[in-house]
């Protein structure tokens, strides 16, 4: 296999891995606080929608000359904020109204797709569901670092600022979850909310915090997903929200394992998208879809072997009942 293909596969693996990490960390915060979050997909879509719509307006409608850095940062902020707004709907239903968290999640997923397509048709001049933007964010060579043999071309060529951001978020999340008072309280609310409540931790507040963090990270994840691989958003994030859920389970709700799970999934999907360029895989005659389904099959197998002693937070999915035991 020649090195160019290898590097190309690694680049794609990173592009895929970064949003998966960030979104599944979002899912982690929500589930650690005790709220099931199958709405990650919907929040990603809403984030990607708002972010790309902003870029579309800046570049095509208002025609503001903005440096790529500023544009990207503003886009990320808008996507994050949108994710938070959407997550509030989920939080209100599942925390205040003690509703079925799965149903509310499904509703948000459905709403997001329909809303993104409907609004894009109404707002873009072409009246289509595709929101185009000029992708000006690629960094061809990171100064100095790209000269490192092998690792340089792998990680520091054709890269995006978003990749670095994803890694920073991972490190910060791990720190927050395990080394801060907030993280401890959050985890307590997902394991045994009555115990947390009895020592004065507000379960409602902590769960709101968990769901809001998940909305923020998932919303941002929508942009992290779309920017490296496309120059238009069409109302879909290709099931990455659900894949991030698989990463979360595969990664046993732990940040460092989420990193490995996301890398594994990223590699599989990267191979699936480029395997016709890899001679020995092409000769095997395996359909690309079999690579695409590997992450899901692997997750099912892992679940089958670990769910008896599941790593999932114990109280996840249950509305908090003060009078419960």
């Amino acid at each position: 296999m020649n090195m160019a293909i290898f590097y190309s596969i690694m680049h794609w693996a990173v592009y895929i891995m970064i949003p998966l990490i960030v979104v599944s960390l979002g899912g982690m915060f929500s589930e650690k606080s005790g709220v099931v979050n199958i709405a990650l997909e919907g929040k990603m879509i809403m984030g990607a929608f708002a972010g790309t719509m902003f870029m579309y307006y800046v570049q095509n409608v208002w025609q503001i000359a903005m440096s790529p850095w500023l544009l990207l940062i503003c886009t990320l902020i808008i996507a994050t904020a949108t994710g938070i707004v959407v997550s509030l709907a989920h939080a209100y239903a599942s925390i205040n109204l003690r509703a079925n968290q799965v149903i509310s999640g499904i509703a948000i997923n459905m709403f997001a797709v329909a809303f993104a397509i409907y609004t894009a048709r109404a707002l873009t001049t072409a009246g289509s569901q595709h929101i185009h933007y000029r992708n000006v964010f690629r960094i061809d060579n990171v100064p100095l670092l790209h000269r490192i043999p092998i690792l340089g071309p792998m990680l520091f060529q054709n890269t995006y600022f978003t990749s670095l951001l994803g890694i920073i978020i991972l490190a910060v999340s791990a720190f927050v979850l395990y080394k801060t008072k907030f993280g401890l309280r959050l985890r307590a609310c997902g394991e045994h909310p009555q115990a947390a409540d009895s020592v004065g931790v507000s379960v409602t507040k902590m769960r709101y915090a968990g769901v809001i963090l998940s909305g923020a990270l998932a919303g941002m994840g929508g942009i992290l997903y779309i920017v490296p691989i496309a120059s238009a958003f069409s109302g879909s994030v290709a099931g990455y929200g659900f894949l991030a859920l698989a990463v979360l389970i595969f990664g046993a709700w732990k940040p460092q394992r989420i990193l490995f799970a996301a890398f594994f999934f990223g590699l599989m999907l990267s191979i699936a998208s480029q395997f016709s360029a890899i001679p020995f895989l092409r000769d095997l005659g395996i359909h690309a879809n079999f690579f695409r389904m590997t992450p899901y099959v692997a997750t099912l197998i892992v679940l089958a072997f670990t769910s008896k002693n599941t790593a999932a937070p114990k109280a996840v999915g249950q509305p908090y009942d003060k009078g419960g035991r």
Partner: protein
Amino acid sequence: MNRDAVMSFLSSLVVLAAGLLIGFIILLVSNASSAWEAFRTILTFGFSGIRNVGDVLLGATPIIMTGLSVAFAFKTGLFNIGATGQFAFGGLTAILIGHNFTGMPDGLRIVFALAAATAAGALWGAIPGLLKAFRNVHEVISCIMTNYIGMFLVTFLIDRYAFNPAVGKSLALPEGSNLPTLGFEHIFREEFLPGFYRVSRVNAGILIAIIAAVIIYIILEKTTFGYELKACGFNKDAAKYAGINQNRNIVASMMISGALAGLGGALLYTSGTEAMGASNVLLPYGFTGISVAFLGLNHPIGIIFSGSLVSYLFLGGARTQVMGFSIEVVEIVISVIIYFCAFVFLVKTFLGKHIGKLLRFKGDNA
């Protein structure tokens, strides 16, 4: 009619009205001048002609089946969001049989295709069932996984064995492999020029869906088996104490749920109107089934009506495209309905408090 049923029905109406209201607001915001026109179209188009009525029934067929699938699982304490995968497998099976068993007499072939599709759906539903029963895997998560695995497998199989490159979808079935129309084409039609008719493709599928709903009603309400399944859903510990084999029931429930979705897939793709796409996209029918199930209060007979209602809204929504709106507005309405369904219990309590007083029911003390 008891108080609870009335309250459930009223809360369903409230949820429906809330969804429609938000839909109307969205129409208003996007184009105020024709919003009312579009809203009226959504509400009335399905009944504006006998052919449209046929199309409503045609569109209702698959979502009644997935609605039954979701509701049956829900009644037994399981959340089957894997209906879309089971539906796809059923559809695929029917398509493959429709193409390859052309030596069989037409009537026999269609029966065989439907039976095999039902079995395929049941098998795909059995996976989350088995994992739940014996490995304690939450069915929502395993259903998400099996949905995607199923999507990739089905797309691969369509691509390999029944692909029509001209349209990028599955090959159209030979006419004899489609469901009979039972003379419906003489009823559900409109004369648009003297002697020329626009005909609805509604067919035997809607009757099969209604029969399926009745059978599910009988299983759930009139048999010991159904009672056991529901007992597991209400309180699994009590059911276990009563000597009910819980694991067997979980698997059986998921298989029946999958079978319903699988049959739904077969009914859609043998209606002569749809070809299966060969791109990796999850089919919407399983998810629409969730809203149909909740809107129909998870009652098999209610689902016949809620499925028809949702189909009715979709038909009207599609019609608004001529006014420059897009059909997604109906999906927004439906997603809002599902969101409110999440706390339909709350709506019920609220109604019970404020309206229940005004109504008198037999057996009420107050």
